[in-house]
């Protein structure tokens, strides 16, 4: 015999699920939500088809500010479905075939990329509930033209040193039209000092090494790196297919890139060895899907070729290697624009600057930089996860905007990252999208 309150609890739970689940799955906004700039439930844009759901949920309506109709709710639902399909399918293949799959790397990439797509879609739904899906931000966060980045490392081991990394980045952009552009990517990076690691073997303990504990230094490493590449984005006609109408426009991308690291490694008393590791990505291609005027999913994938060169101990010249096929390279990012200054100030005074934010969640399928995500015994398969929050502050009337970013890289530990940069005017100046 069920208690008297059972029926009531179950009915309330069912009612709650009926309301919450569709809202979360589609990122729907309930009636009456949103500012005047947002799509309003029940008020489709003039001339646009209006599905019945639009009468109740804004995410099912065409979002204002775009030349063509984008309905973020179905777009996010589709991405979530695709991510589940990709992630579960790839994981299923890996488990079904075990670790013996000779070319298992693409499946691992699908697992990581699918996870970001799924997490991004859910975050997108939450963001749509909080700040709305549109309209498009006129001055959204993009890669800064000139920036300085830092990644903390740190150590908790006595006698060791793990200096932060610093990078100088450039990203000038040439716009062909408001949806197609070419960006030059450049970065010079390095460690701010030498990394130092101790040897914990107890038989080597040296009580005379005062100030640094008793564990002698085993290895030290200095690092310098650079990366350069081109990032070409070409907007596709919208809709590119009849069936993709109202799901958001897409871009195709091509980003040939080279990443290079040189390490000077002091191996105990043996001497210093130079090791160069170069990653070539000549065929890195990708796509970006604008799921809503403020949300994007970007995917890159391509073959990777590595070159390893080295010097003799204490030598100055390098024995150069040749390119070898390496694991696939891939990236998956979900970006959410967050307007921070679209509301007028409470005191009525005009704002001196426009501030926009962007939350990015990404997975990089490469452990080239020394970071990979390990979970239990799943070690050595996945690359790192990135979470970034970036602010763009543009004084009213200024051609230059400042960008500040903070984030984290999760993989072989946890690194806090920060960036400071400026966004200079694009060449030539085009309407921003």
């Amino acid at each position, binding site marked *: 015999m069920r208690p008297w309150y059972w029926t009531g609890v179950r009915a309330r739970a069912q009612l709650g699920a009926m309301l919450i689940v569709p809202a979360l799955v589609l990122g729907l906004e309930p009636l009456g939500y949103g500012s005047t700039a947002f799509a309003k439930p029940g008020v489709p844009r003039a001339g646009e088809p209006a599905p019945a759901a639009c009468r109740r949920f804004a995410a099912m309506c065409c979002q204002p500010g775009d030349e063509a109709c984008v309905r973020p709710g179905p777009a996010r639902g589709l991405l979530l479905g695709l991510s589940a399909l990709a992630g579960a399918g790839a994981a299923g293949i890996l488990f079904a075939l075990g670790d013996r*799959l*000779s070319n298992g790397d693409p499946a691992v990439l699908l697992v990581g990329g699918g996870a970001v797509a799924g997490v991004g879609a859910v975050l997108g739904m939450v963001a749509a509930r909080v700040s709305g899906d549109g309209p498009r931000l006129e001055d959204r966060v993009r890669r800064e033209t000139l920036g300085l980045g830092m990644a903390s490392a740190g150590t908790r081991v*006595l*006698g060791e040193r793990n200096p932060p990394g610093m990078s100088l980045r450039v990203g000038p952009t040439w716009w062909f039209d408001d949806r197609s552009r070419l960006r030059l990517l450049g970065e010079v990076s390095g460690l701010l000092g030498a990394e130092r690691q101790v040897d914990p073997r107890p038989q080597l303990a040296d009580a005379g090494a005062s100030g640094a504990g008793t564990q002698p230094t085993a290895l030290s490493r200095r690092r310098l790196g650079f990366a350069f590449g081109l990032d070409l984005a070409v907007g596709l006609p919208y809709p590119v297919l009849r069936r993709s109408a109202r799901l958001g426009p897409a871009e195709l991308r091509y980003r040939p890139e080279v990443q290079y690291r040189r390490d000077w490694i002091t191996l105990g008393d*043996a001497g210093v060895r130079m090791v160069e590791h170069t990653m070539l990505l000549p065929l890195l291609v990708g796509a970006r899907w604008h799921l809503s005027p403020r949300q994007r999913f970007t995917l890159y994938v391509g073959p990777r070729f590595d070159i*390893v060169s080295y010097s003799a101990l204490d030598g100055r010249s390098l024995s150069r290697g*040749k390119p*070898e096929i390496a694991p696939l390279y891939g990236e998956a990012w979900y970006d959410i624009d967050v307007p921070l200054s679209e509301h007028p100030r409470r005191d009525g005074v005009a704002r001196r600057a426009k501030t926009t934010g962007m939350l990015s969640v990404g997975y990089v399928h490469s452990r080239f930089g*020394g970071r990979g995500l390990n979970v239990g015994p799943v070690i050595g398969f996945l690359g790192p996860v990135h979470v970034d929050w970036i602010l763009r502050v543009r004084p009213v009337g200024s051609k230059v905007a400042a960008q500040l970013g903070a984030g984290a890289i999760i993989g072989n530990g946890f690194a806090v990252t920060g960036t400071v940069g400026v966004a200079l005017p694009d060449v030539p100046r085009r309407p921003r999208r």
Partner: protein
Amino acid sequence: MNHPNERRAHRWMLLALLAFAPTHACIQPECASPDYGNPECRVLAENELARLLTAAGVEVRFQEPGAAVASSWAATGLVREPAAGTLALRVAAPGPFAISLQPGPMPATLQVTLENVDPAATITAGPPGAEVEIPGGVLGATSRSFALTLDDDRTVWIRGARPCPPRFRVAVTADIQTNPWQFERIVDRLIVESQAAALAGEPLVGLVIAGDLAESARDDEYEALAPIFARVPFPIAVTAGNHDIYRPRSPQYNRNYGPGNHAFTVCDVHVAMIDTGSGTIAPSVQARLPELLDRGGATHLLAAMHHPPYPGITGSGWSREDVAAQVMVEFAAAGVDLVLAGHNHALRDFPDIDIGGGSLREIIVGTGGAYQGLGVPRYGYLRIAFDGDTMTPCFVEVEPRGLDGPAGDPLGTLAYCDP
């Protein structure tokens, strides 16, 4: 006054930037709070477990084979005292070994069991100049027991070495994990091959297992393997895989097998075993690579580890690819003839990996019994035959019960062995 969202965002930015401020409040010596998922803590563990102060005050230390003084020690074995006066000394690998016993203040008699030693090895024990030979044990047994009395203040040494003909073999496999039954079948085949090889004057002198002996790094899994290992009629050299080490609270792998990072020379081949269970190696081991890869007078040089430093597009690579590249550089610089790995539950051969203009060969032999998914699995071991300057690897498939012949075909660059 700014909008609250804006102020909130600026506050978070400030907090994030403060994260870069250096802090020294939490500094500790390495592994003072052990996490055995950290490879450096396993280095500490394997060295701690290579020495012991017995209940009678005898300091027992594993040494490098050529050591003459007992002032230090080396992670070349595992010392245990299961009961007072009883010593179990597991030698980590085939080839010569040395153990020192520094007497305590009182005379002591120890019942010593040497484990994982070659039945063909000559073993001596006693103070320098007064060594006595320990008689051989049961045919095919890799353990020997004897009593040892320390009645003066001289250090007692236990040393062992085996005679080697110019032709000999080494077997390699990896990844037993969930299927010790299949590994038993592999051991059956190794016993048969060992007897045939001995008659042919080409003894099988060791088995290398490149990690993942257990699925979940539990003691009961290692206990299940112990009687199987005891049937192998020659020494076994093991290193840790990701499934052996991921429980961070206790170094169960090291407690059962001793070191994961060690090197040995048997007959004319030098083998460096490297613990890559964490998808990387300990920086202190990276610093020692020139020493671990020093072949001495050996003609051949092998390096064995669990994670393949060159994974191709198998997906089974290192968590730190930068360190993997640096390790391959050390292999190339030392002139490693063959890199052996597991992790990928398959047989793979990468015969020509370019490192600095030179060439490395890597064979993945994760065929020790672990699950290989749908389809007929290919289990077995790699046989490496050495004859003077030549080294010939080939694969011996040990089909699972129910199949009447090999399930796989030879690789283009790696043949199946002649029966």
